[in-house]
């Protein structure tokens, strides 16, 4: 009985197996395409898988990123040596200018404080930072993401803004246990509602994988001056309003934005939790002002 059964199994299985063998590559290609469709239909599942795998290799990436950072530092050091004198000159001038600004800022802060007390103004909840090291820059021709060394156990949440220095660099799109992934503002899929500083005109910052994302949905006739600063507008609730993003640049009729931060040289990022959405972000833009 058993023998006859296994015989029939072999009779059926053998040709099937031969067929699989013959079309093995086609089968694999088919599975790859199927995987892409699954990824499109169930992004949560794929995100979880990504988070697991990224978590698993994060220690290795961390180890690899250190020598790379060292080499980058050495190169940077050499470059700085060459420009030491000019840099010093520039910094002295900048320092003098900034000291004047500091006086202005202190005066305004005092004034602001007194006005707030007059209005019984209820301040927004303070935002908190998580600083993380950049351990991978997967690069490639199609995506702009970073992997950083902070995850769920550090309090990172999906959708948090990632800032570096004075500007927005992206947002958290995937959170693992001790690593997470940031979608940069230059990525093809990044869309950020922004507002122009002087005209207060709203627009959409739309990444296209180039170094300078485009400014879209600007009404006709709006004058954009080169060098004008761009802030998040807070519409859509993803980011609080007032985070500096970059500076406008008019290029062959297209308005593009030069990010505040050099995205290629990021070593650390700050993942910012703004408490409630729509927090007062101008404070967060200047880490010194938090304390």
């Amino acid at each position, binding site marked *: 009985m058993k023998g006859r059964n296994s015989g029939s199994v072999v009779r059926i299985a053998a040709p099937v197996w031969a067929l699989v063998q013959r079309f093995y590559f086609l089968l694999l290609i088919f599975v790859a395409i199927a995987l892409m469709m699954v990824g499109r239909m169930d992004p949560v599942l794929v995100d979880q898988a990504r988070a697991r795998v990224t978590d698993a290799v994060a220690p290795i990436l961390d180890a690899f990123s250190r020598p790379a950072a060292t080499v980058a530092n050495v190169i940077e050091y050499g470059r700085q040596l060459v420009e030491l004198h000019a840099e010093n000159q520039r910094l002295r001038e900048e320092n003098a200018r900034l000291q004047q600004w500091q006086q202005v800022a202190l005066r305004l802060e005092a004034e602001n404080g007194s006005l707030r007390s007059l209005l019984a103004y209820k301040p927004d909840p303070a935002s908190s930072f998580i600083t993380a090291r950049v351990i991978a820059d997967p*690069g490639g021709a199609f995506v702009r993401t970073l992997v950083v060394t902070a995850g769920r156990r550090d309090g990172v949440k999906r959708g948090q803004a990632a800032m570096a220095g004075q500007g927005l660099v992206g947002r958290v799109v995937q959170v693992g246990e001790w690593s997470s992934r940031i979608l940069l503002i230059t990525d093809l899929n990044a869309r950020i509602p922004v507002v122009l500083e002087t005209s207060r005109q709203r627009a959409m910052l739309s990444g296209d994988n180039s170094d300078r994302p485009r400014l879209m949905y600007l009404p006709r006739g709006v004058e954009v001056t080169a060098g004008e600063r761009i802030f998040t507008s807070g519409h859509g609730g993803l980011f609080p309003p007032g985070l500096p993003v970059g500076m406008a640049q008019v290029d062959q009729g297209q308005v593009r934005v030069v990010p505040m931060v050099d995205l290629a040289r990021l070593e650390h990022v700050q993942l910012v939790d703004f408490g409630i959405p729509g927090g007062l972000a101008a404070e967060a833009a200047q880490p010194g002002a938090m304390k």
Partner: protein
Amino acid sequence: MAVGIWQKLDHTGRNLLPFAVTVLLMLVAMAPTHVPGLGMVAPPLTLISVFYWAIHRPDLLRPSVVFVLGVLQDLLTGLPVGLSALVFVIAYWVVLTQRRFFLGNSFLLMWSGFAMIAAAAAVIQWAVYSLSQVTLVGFKPAGFQALLAIAIFPLPAWVLMRLHRAFLS
């Protein structure tokens, strides 16, 4: 008896080399370089590795392993899962059918072979990615990436050759 076990372990370890080296190259390629513009065109070291082992030791890098490597790369880099797997499997398939031609001839021929594979891979990747995003993505970065990969090919190929000779012959 003990020697037999150690020999077996050693053997298995050596046979895992192509897979391990490819994964290692994948992770190395992900390290942040801090060089402006390089991240965009960072050469696909994984493709070079798959190409090399497909020619020299396809018995140690089976198609299913190549597929897994592709999925791993997609998961790590944030590409749509299956895209690199598709590209790698097609590249592996093509190389395997032309293997005799690559094996018998000079390094220059292998290089030109890789040039063709890299160009085709870039086109496939670009086309499939554009389809998956339902927008026409610019081809330039993918093209530059392929060019750079072709330009630096001898270096990773030399490293792989040394590893191959040291551990698998």
